[in-house]
């Protein structure tokens, strides 16, 4: 670790000034916009809207699980449709779209010092195809037979058979078409994010000066570009099996006494393709959260992120390793048991870089000047839930421990804690953090506090006890638990408690949505840099940033993103675009 670049040396211009598309009408400015910031808001609004559908579905599921037999309209068919749509919406259409399409679009150009994404037109198309994918998905609620109830994993053969809701109706077809559209749309956006980070960084913004937010989103996007094609082909093949009568995934089958016209296919091939996508997908959601939360902690603790280089390499290392762990979702799938040795080892190795990230977050708090703002509270809550969910991952990743726990409520509790609650807490923290930049006004603090406490404690009370229901041996994806002998009377009470918590947490989200709308007009004026942060998005001449982001001249970057509380500096932060060698910044090279 040494002092590097004399802070006032101006690097030569490497990126040519880009020709921006200037909108000529209201339509091209606000609707068919090519400005990444507008596209980001469109992505976020659409993801939130469909996410609300998933939230309501989760209430319906909890009604059934907590109070079985009380609600006649939740038939087994309906229940399976609810869990399937809830899972798919949350993982793909909310989390992936919001982190990459929402935060990626808004933050990448601003944080790297670019005027916009490098291919604005393709970026616009990306959103409209995403919207189409969401509409196709939502339309399945109104299709004959309703949406598919195959579980979000869509495992064949049942996904395309009559015993599953939507299997021989429209449900599964609309789901597959929607996923295919989503992947096409995402690829258009994803290529943009990657090329923008690699090619459009402003002068002085070396890769090792990027804020970790950008590193997280960038790495996740590269992973998504490599992982989504596996899901794409799996969807196309299943669509052929369903509509053209091919047998990629369909062996000889007798369904309700009748021989089907399929033969020779492999159901387990689908699982490999699905999880080759599905496991990286976990990190596609997690890495942006890792990056964002690093910046939230650093900014609000007024302290540089601890071990920046280690953090970058941990992100890249986790990203790479996550491509060789997929079959830990398949320990009891019937694949060759010797695979278990390999995948358990790789899975537990991934715990090491992940643990390093956790250590570095808490060590950033150590000897900090911690401002307990709402974003900081959400960041702290993220660490708790992520550590909890990450540690239960060590149960499920360790092949033989997975055998009794696999397909039980333990798994449901684990993945909700680690890739549901934890990333969503980061999303909330990030919204409280960047809302002032997007709108020019602060979100209401009192509503924010209420939202935080109910969401954090409520979510913990939902998912922590749920692990123990799974440990008892209660399987997941059961519409009806009353006739299972492992489910005791007291466990039914616990289930009812969990359901009540779920409604409470849901209510807090309504308050949050109200806050989002209310504060646009009534929030306190934020100014350009209310958190006194160092990164470039806070240094724009206008707030919200205008088209082209940075006025006449692009900023020049002189330092890393974490010059907080530099000894000898006048203030406790030095923005990245401030020249001069005052203070004793010891930016890692």
């Amino acid at each position, binding site marked *: *670790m040494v002092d590097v670049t004399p802070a006032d040396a101006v690097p030569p211009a490497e990126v040519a000034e880009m020709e921006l598309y200037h909108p000529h009408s209201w339509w091209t400015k606000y609707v068919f916009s090519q400005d990444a910031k507008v596209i980001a808001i469109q992505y976020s609004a659409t993801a939130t809207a469909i996410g609300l559908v998933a939230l309501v579905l989760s209430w319906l599921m909890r009604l059934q699980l907590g109070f079985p037999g009380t609600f006649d309209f939740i038939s*087994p*068919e309906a229940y399976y449709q609810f869990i399937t749509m809830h899972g798919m919406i949350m993982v793909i259409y909310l989390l992936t779209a919001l982190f990459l399409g929402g935060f990626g679009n808004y933050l990448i150009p601003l944080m790297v010092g670019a005027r916009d994404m490098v291919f604005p037109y393709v970026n616009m198309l990306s959103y409209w195809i995403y919207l189409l994918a969401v509409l196709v998905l939502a339309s399945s609620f109104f299709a004959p037979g309703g949406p598919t109830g195959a*579980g979000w994993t869509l*495992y064949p053969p*049942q996904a395309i*058979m009559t*015993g599953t809701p939507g299997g021989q109706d429209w449900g599964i077809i609309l789901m597959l078409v929607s996923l295919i559209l989503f992947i096409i749309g995402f690829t258009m956006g994803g290529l943009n994010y990657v090329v923008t980070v690699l090619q459009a960084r402003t002068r002085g913004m070396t890769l090792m000066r990027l804020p970790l937010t950008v590193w997280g989103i960038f790495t996740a996007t590269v992973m998504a570009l490599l992982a989504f094609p596996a899901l794409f082909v799996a969807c196309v093949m299943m669509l052929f099996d369903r509509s053209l009568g091919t047998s990629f995934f369909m062996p*000889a*089958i*007798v369904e*309700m*006494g009748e*021989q089907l016209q399929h033969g*020779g296919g492999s*159901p*387990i091939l689908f699982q490999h393709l699905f999880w080759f996508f599905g496991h990286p997908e976990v990190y596609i959601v997690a890495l942006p959260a890792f990056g964002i939360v690093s910046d939230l902690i650093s900014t609000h*603790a*007024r302290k540089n992120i601890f071990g*920046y280089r280690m953090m970058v390499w941990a992100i890249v290392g986790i990203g790479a390793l996550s491509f060789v762990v997929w079959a830990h979702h398949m320990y*009891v799938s*019937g694949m060759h048991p010797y695979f*278990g040795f390999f995948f*358990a080892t790789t899975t537990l190795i991934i715990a*090491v870089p992940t*643990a*390093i990230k956790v*250590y*570095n977050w*808490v*060590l950033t*708090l150590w*000897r*900090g*000047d*911690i401002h*307990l703002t709402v974003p900081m*509270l959400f960041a*702290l809550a993220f660490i708790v839930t992520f*550590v909890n969910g990450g540690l*239960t991952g060590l*149960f499920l990743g360790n*092949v*033989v*421990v997975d*055998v*009794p726990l696999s*397909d039980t409520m333990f798994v449901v509790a684990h993945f909700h804690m680690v890739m549901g609650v934890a990333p969503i807490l980061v999303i909330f923290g990030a919204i409280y953090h960047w809302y002032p930049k997007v709108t020019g006004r602060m979100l209401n603090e009192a509503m924010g506090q209420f939202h935080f406490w109910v969401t954090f404690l409520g979510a913990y009370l939902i998912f922590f006890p749920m692990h123990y229901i799974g*440990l*008892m*041996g209660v*399987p997941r994806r059961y519409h009806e638990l009353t006739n299972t*002998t*492992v489910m*005791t009377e007291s466990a039914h009470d616990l289930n009812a408690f969990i359901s009540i918590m779920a409604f409470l947490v849901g209510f807090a989200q309504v308050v949050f949505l109200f806050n989002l709308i209310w504060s646009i007009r009534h929030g306190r004026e934020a100014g350009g840099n209310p958190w006194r942060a160092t990164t470039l998005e806070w240094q724009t001449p206008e707030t919200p940033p205008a088209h082209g982001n940075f006025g006449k001249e692009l900023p020049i970057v002189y330092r890393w993103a974490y010059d*907080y509380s*530099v000894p000898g500096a006048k203030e406790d932060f030095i923005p990245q675009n401030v020249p001069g060698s005052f203070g*004793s910044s010891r*930016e*890692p090279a």
Partner: protein
Amino acid sequence: MAIALVLVLVVVGSVLFHFLSPWWWTPIASNWDYIDNTIIITFWITGVVFAAVVLFMAYCVFRFRHREGNQAAYEPENKRLEWWLTIVTAIGVTAMLVPGLFVWNQFVSVPSDATVVEVVGQQWQWSFRLPGKDGKLGTSDTRNVSPENPLGVNASDANGQDDVVVEAADLHLPVGKPVKMLLRSIDVLHDFYVPEFRAKMDMIPGSVTYFWFTPTKTGTFQVLCAELCGQGHPLMNGVVMVDTQENYLAWLGEQQTFAQLSASQQVGSAE
């Protein structure tokens, strides 16, 4: 400030819940207490890490909360500390992985004296087949499945004629004898799961999968399907009764073989 207190309460509450709540695994009835032991090791290691990280956070939030005039320390990196933490983590992970892999090796190595039982899953019931006096199961194929031959046993295979067929009824097993469960499905994925045995494995149409275990307690145990298999999934229950040797033989004597079943079917259809 409230957050520091709440973080401590989260740890204390979680630990108390773990030790005091009535929700814990169902008593084991197989030889796989090794798996339970590995879970206990994992609980201890992960529990200590969870408590340590969250309590450390609570301390930091309390000790380094913002007050007028505070300034944060400036320390971008600390190589020694980072390496130290990495090594300790690697040791902890190894302490969980090594016993895990050791037990997995046992789980996938079927003892040579294990008897074979075939489980056949279909929407939404369980059937079973046991080898007859020859000790061998006849071959089978989903293509052979018909109302007269619900398990798809190959009628031209001599080994299959004396196989005991238990269609949609309870399975009995003798206590204390290792058994290899051969798992097969004729329609969609299922998963044969008895919580008390701690073992489970998916059943895949077109393949035969397996696991083995030794029942260690007599009694009646519920079979659950643990892989989503359509809308009847939660109703796909079955029963395994673990018997003493005598009771088991008595039950076995009452069962019909494939040959007997086919003969009675033919008589039935001729009438």
